[in-house]
Structures are given as C-alpha cells and as structure tokens.
C-alpha cells in the first residue's frame, strides 16, 4: 500500500469518513459534557451532604443555587446533561440497532433537534421560577 492512500489529506480534513464530521464533533461533545457532569456530580453529593450537618447549613448552600448566576449555570448544566443523554442513546442505537450506522447522520440531527426543544422548554420554566417568584 502506498503512503498516499494511508494518510488523510490534512488540508480540508475530509480525507476520512470520520474526521471533521458530525461523528467526531458529537464524540468531542460527549467527552466534554461527560467530564463537566462528573465534576458537578461530586459537588452535588457534597452540597446534599449538608443535610447531615444541619437544616441551616443545607438551606444556606441552597440559597446560593437560587441566585441569578447559578440559575444560568444550572441551565448550562442541564444543556450538557440533555446532550449527553440524547447522544448516549444515539451511540447505543449505532452500536446495537441494525440500521444505526446507515442512519447515523439522521440520528445526530434528531438528537440536536430534541436537545433544542427540551432545552428551550427547560430554560423557559426554570428561569421563570428562578427569576420570577420569591
């Protein structure tokens, strides 16, 4: 085999089926959102653990979650969770469903569409509750 066919042309990044396309970017997105969610999970168990210290301690931590900047952070976190969840289901379909690899592009668009719809729904409700009441 000549080296010309073994190497992907670097200029436009279109030398392989994978590189630079939706499959690669969804893989990057899955990793980044996964790490973000994992670090939040560590914090979330610790903040919930405040219920074993005292009701006051827990309520004090929860007050910080009710600030406007945390409300935006929570929305970003849910955006990460929604993408990771929907893209994870797409990965499972590609792995186990017979038509998964054939329809992988369609599946990614379905993931992005569902992500947008669910995220808009969540944001409207959550930000209304966070900024509106109390």
């Amino acid at each position, binding site marked *: 085999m000549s080296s010309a066919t073994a190497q992907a042309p670097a200029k436009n990044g279109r030398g392989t089926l994978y590189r630079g396309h939706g499959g690669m970017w969804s893989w990057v997105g899955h*990793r980044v959102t996964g790490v973000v969610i994992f670090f939040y999970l560590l914090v979330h168990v610790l903040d919930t653990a405040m219920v074993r210290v005292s009701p006051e301690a827990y309520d004090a931590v929860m007050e910080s979650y009710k600030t406007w900047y945390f409300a935006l952070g929570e929305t970003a976190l849910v955006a990460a969770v929604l993408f990771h969840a929907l893209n994870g289901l797409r990965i499972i379909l590609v792995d186990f469903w017979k038509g998964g690899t054939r329809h992988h592009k369609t599946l990614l668009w379905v993931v992005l569409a569902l992500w947008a719809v669910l995220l808009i729904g969540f944001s409207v409700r959550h930000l209304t509750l966070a900024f509106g009441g*109390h």
Partner: protein
Amino acid sequence: MSTPETTIAAPRTGRIDPKYTRGESGKGNFEMLAWLFMRVSGVILVVLVFVHIFSNLMVGDGISGIDFGFVAGKWAHPLWLFWDLALLWLAMLHGANGVRTIINDYAERDGVRFWLSMILYVATAAIIVLGTLVIFTFEPCMVDATGALLENSPAICR
C-alpha cells in the same frame, strides 16, 4: 501447493496464532463488561436523571422551593430514597468509568496515569460512601445537645 479440490477453511476455525487472541493477559473481559455497563447504566440513568430534574426543578416552585424541608418530604418516601441511591451509584460508576477512559487516552506517562487514576478511584469511593451514608442516616428532625429542635427544621417535627 494446493489442488483445485482443496477447500478453504471458514474464518476463525482451527488454531489461531496466540498473538491474535485476546483475553489471555489476566485482564479477562473487563473492558468489554465496562463497555456494556456504560450502555446499560446509560439507558437507566436517562430515566433516573430526567425524572430527578423534572420533579425537583420543573414542578411546584422549582429551584425556589428547594430547602431542607423539601428533601425531608422527598426522603419520607422509600421510592425517592432508593431513586436517589440508584442515581448516586450508577452516575458515579458511569462517570468514573468515563473519566478512567479519558485518563487512559490522554495521560501517556505511566506515573501520571497511575496517580490520576488513583485520585479518581479514591474520590469516587469517598463520594459513593458519603452519599450512601447521607441517604441512610438522614434525620428529618435534628436536635442540639439540649434536645431543642434545630433552626429551619421542617414543620412536621413540631
């Protein structure tokens, strides 16, 4: 060498050169089980996490309504206790395995990979143990040394 009557053996029959066989190194099929665990726990986590977010942030007062009394009310029901316990264990193991994969991908030096993995395993074990203890030892009506109810205790304690 071969006559026209010779038939070609079907793939994977007969002896396979040992260098092409896997699972003999003592690691067993751990990596395959880890791969399968990510998919099985992933599907379960989608249900657990979506209901968790919906029941805490989308109904009632949402984030504004979350305080000690909200947690006490939720954990008065065994269903939510075990819902949160399942969330804790599955999410931590799913997340830890994901980060383990990322460490193995990017930390090329043996020492760096070893210590990053150790930090990950210790942190994961500590958080799982802490969270499990919190869920099983939760006390809705905490009192101080004199037996008086603590501030911000839920109404059911009075």
